[in-house]
């Protein structure tokens, strides 16, 4: 039997359908893989009992011919999603041990389609970070190593670092993520897999611990464009419990992901993303992507998104502002950590001082500051105006083109500990992903090649609002052209063994 953990999600579903193996078998294979890769710290909670129970139930459904879209497929769930009866801590000490009485809409949608949950995946605390180093449960180590022999542990990116590492290291067929400013796309690029953030409003936010409500959006990781499409298909849909979720039909994402024709499409290349100081390798992979699409018949058009340089500063006002308010509920009164103080104020202060990590505190303070009387107009309102201008940039670009192609991140994965002393440098990781987040647009990262160190580089496709199909189609075309087959060496050696 082939190693079941190395199948794509689509292949695995086919195998289950053909009765080549059972869900229990492929689930067990993944549970074993998780055990073998535990040092990566991708999962903070493993749920083998739940997984095997779900797998068994799935096999019974299949036997009765009642299989759902993802029936029997073992996947990982980012810890930001509330899962009933299973610790959902958002990787924060303030929620350590918190077991919700409810299931997030997106995970429920996945279970309704038969998905099997392997466990909860590590992430930056409250999804605030770009290297998965702010987690209260320890950082995640990427399965990738530089070829220079240094053996330094690299970051899988963040905030969905556990999800990306798990899918890259074959510890899950696919995984959920969330993306607020790049938290799916950047880790996908760093770990050589696909990650899609759909249009804001495509997936329900109900039951996902809020970081920045106007930006947070659920999305998926898969090792192929088709796999990410399949996952997203099951996750997406209108939810009356989320007032910002869109009441519109979910298109056939899988069909879109199988369409590798870009003939006649117009692909925009935003000149503002050609930032000075960008590494040569990133520049080259971008050019490679442009050439691939052109040779597939797409028309390449230079476009301008003039307000791009204001995106990051605006993002780092809006997201902290919302987070400062969203995180106010963690006060030690009703659930989670409580540190008793002499009086109420002291209890609040000590609970939050002990429960939140440095990056969360930094953002809560920034957010509180920018919303304060006297600063609100200069910061928050200004940032909202910038946000509108950034959306307008995209809207006028889409008058000329069907999708945009950019690098996903300004570099390949960096070593754990790098950039840690300089928050601004860390924030710059999101420079190419944040604008689409601010505009609420769908974006996807597809692995395009390896750099000189043997580390993956990703390309980002940004589409029109609600046009994930275009994003997937262009992504599938790039995937086919890139023919990215690289597997982290530690995973390959496990396979050989």
């Amino acid at each position, binding site marked *: 039997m082939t190693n079941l953990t190395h199948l794509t999600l689509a292949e695995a579903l086919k195998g289950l359908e053909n009765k080549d193996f059972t869900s229990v078998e492929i689930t067990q294979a993944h549970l074993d893989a998780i055990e073998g890769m535990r040092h990566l710290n991708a999962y903070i909670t493993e749920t083998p009992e739940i997984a095997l129970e779900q797998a068994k139930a799935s096999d019974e459904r299949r036997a009765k011919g009642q299989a759902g879209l993802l029936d029997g497929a073992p996947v990982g769930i980012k810890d930001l999603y509330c899962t009933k009866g299973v610790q959902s801590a*958002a990787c924060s000490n303030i929620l350590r041990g918190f077991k*919700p009485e*409810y299931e997030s809409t997106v995970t429920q949608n996945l279970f309704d389609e038969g998905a099997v949950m392997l466990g909860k995946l590590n992430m930056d605390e409250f999804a605030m970070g770009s290297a998965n180093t702010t987690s209260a449960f320890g950082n995640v180590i990427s399965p990738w190593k530089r070829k220079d022999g240094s053996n330094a542990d690299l970051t899988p990116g963040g905030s969905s670092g556990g999800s990306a590492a798990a899918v890259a290291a074959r510890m899950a067929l696919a995984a959920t993520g969330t993306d607020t400013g790049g938290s799916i796309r950047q880790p996908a690029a760093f770990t050589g897999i696909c990650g899609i953030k759909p249009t804001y409003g495509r997936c329900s936010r109900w039951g996902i611990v809020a970081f920045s409500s106007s930006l947070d959006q659920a999305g998926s990781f898969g090792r192929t464009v088709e796999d990410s499409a399949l996952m997203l298909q099951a996750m997406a849909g209108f939810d009356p419990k989320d*007032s*910002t979720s869109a009441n519109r039909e979910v298109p056939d994402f899988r069909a879109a992901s199988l369409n590798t024709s870009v003939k006649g499409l117009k692909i925009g290349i935003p000149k503002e993303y050609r930032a000075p100081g960008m590494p040569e390798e990133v520049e080259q992979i971008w050019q490679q992507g442009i050439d691939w699409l052109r040779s597939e018949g797409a028309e390449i058009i230079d476009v301008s998104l003039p307000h791009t340089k204001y995106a990051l500063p605006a993002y780092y006002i809006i997201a902290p502002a*919302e987070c*400062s*308010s969203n995180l106010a509920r963690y006060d030690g009164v009703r659930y989670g950590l409580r540190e008793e103080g002499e009086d109420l104020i002291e209890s609040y202060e000590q609970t939050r001082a002990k429960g939140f990590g440095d990056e969360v505190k930094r953002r809560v303070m920034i957010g509180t500051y920018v*919303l304060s*009387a006297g600063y609100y107009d200069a910061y928050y309102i200004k940032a909202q105006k910038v946000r509108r201008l950034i959306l307008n940039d995209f809207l006028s670009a889409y008058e000329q083109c069907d999708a945009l192609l950019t690098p996903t991140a300004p570099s390949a994965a960096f070593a754990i500990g790098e950039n840690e002393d300089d928050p601004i440098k860390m924030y710059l990781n999101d420079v190419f992903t944040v604008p689409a987040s601010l505009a609420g647009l769908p974006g996807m990262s597809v692995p395009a090649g390896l750099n000189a160190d043997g580390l993956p580089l990703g390309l980002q496709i940004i589409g029109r609002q609600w046009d994930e199909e275009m994003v997937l189609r262009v992504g599938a075309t790039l995937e086919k052209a890139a023919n990215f087959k690289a597997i982290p060496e530690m995973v390959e050696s496990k396979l050989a063994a």
Partner: protein
Amino acid sequence: MAQLVKGQTGDWEIVIGMEVHAQVTANSKLFSGASAEFGAAPNSQVSMVDAAMPGMLPVLNEHCVYQAVRTGLGLNSAINKTSVFERKNYFYPDLPQGYQISQYLHPVVGEGKIEIDLPDGTTKEIGITRLHLEQDAGKSLHDQHPTKSYVDLNRSGCALMEIVSEPDIRGPDEAAAYLSKLRMILRYLGTCDGNMEEGSMRADVNISVRKPGGELGTRAEIKNVNSVKAVQQAIDFEVQRQIEILEGGGTVVQETRLWDPGKMETRSMRSKEEAHDYRYFPDPDLLPLVLTQDYIDNVANDLPELPDQKKHRFMEEYGLSLYDASVLIAEQQRAEYFETVTDGRDAKIAANWVINELLGLLNKNGKDLSGSPISAAQLGGLIDLIADNTISGKIAKDVFAEMFETSKDAPAIVEEKGLKQVTDTGEIEKVIDAVLDANPDNVAAYKGGKDKLFGFFVGQVMKETGGKANPAMVNEILKKKLT
């Protein structure tokens, strides 16, 4: 009828604006499906949203919006087609989210006005600045444990309407009249039960004083004023306090003060400097509330006749005085009762019976109209007996008292007790003759010019007939016999 207050340096004018929090009558909360009913066991009506569990999201209760728009229309106010829910951020254990969802820059209802009825029989218009929807907080219980406070979240997330008036109110009487009229309108609309004891209507009073017509003074906001009477008392106290400060050469501090009904005084809660920075910003979990003209028109078509419309109609249609009309429209049920009584009958007589007799007696017995032993139809039946001379007005009061005791119909009581008026001329003549025969001295005196003795004869006749003789006929026959 501005009430000027005399100080040592001359007259002072009182300037008052009010913020009234009215709990919206609705089955469930503003952003969750939990029950909004009053009086349940602590924390038994709390959804995951109300408890601010991680990942929970608010969903706007459409009925609460309907109630707010209905109230806005009832306050003759502009309805804003786009309004925005914002977060008001502060920490308190009875505020689970760490913020209250409220409306700030863009409320659902804009400017309007209501008419208030003053004790001197005049009316006055008070401007409404705005009405917005917001969440109520939970309740902190500080007296359940020696060192800890308990929190009851049943009220957390219930819908409130904050109704803000213009600073058009000029004294305690006007403030009381404003609050009463507002409560009346809300009750007519069925958008708030107006029950101040249960806290479903609470008032904050902004008070300042100035020299008549001068620049506005610095105001103090008085909180915890929970009855119409308390509003009047708090204003009286606060006005004196401010005048004393100003006349002593001091300045009034802009601050929030608490009314202490036990000590009958206001005291400082927090100054402007200590005021919270609420860091309002639009709630990113909620889209702006957008209403169409069609929707607003539909709500308008559902409006009942409002107190002031009814009052003016009663004055025009029934010829009632402003006072009588005001009393009758004070409650919808009272107005309905009156309209049933007066149907086909003289309106002034009907109003008189309802206001002076029935409401008086109910009040004396500590009952309200819904507990009245006499139905509107029964009271109408009594009035009919007077109108057709079956009984006199005087006898009618006895019958009325009997009806109040027994809930029997007026004709039955009249029949049973033989109270029917004697209108038989022969019978009355017989009694008169007997009275005249028995009092020859008085007859002589009357004829000698002592006109006043006429009353004596009438009294004697009524006494003999047990009050049942028709007074007009007695007068007529007596006059004839005595000339």
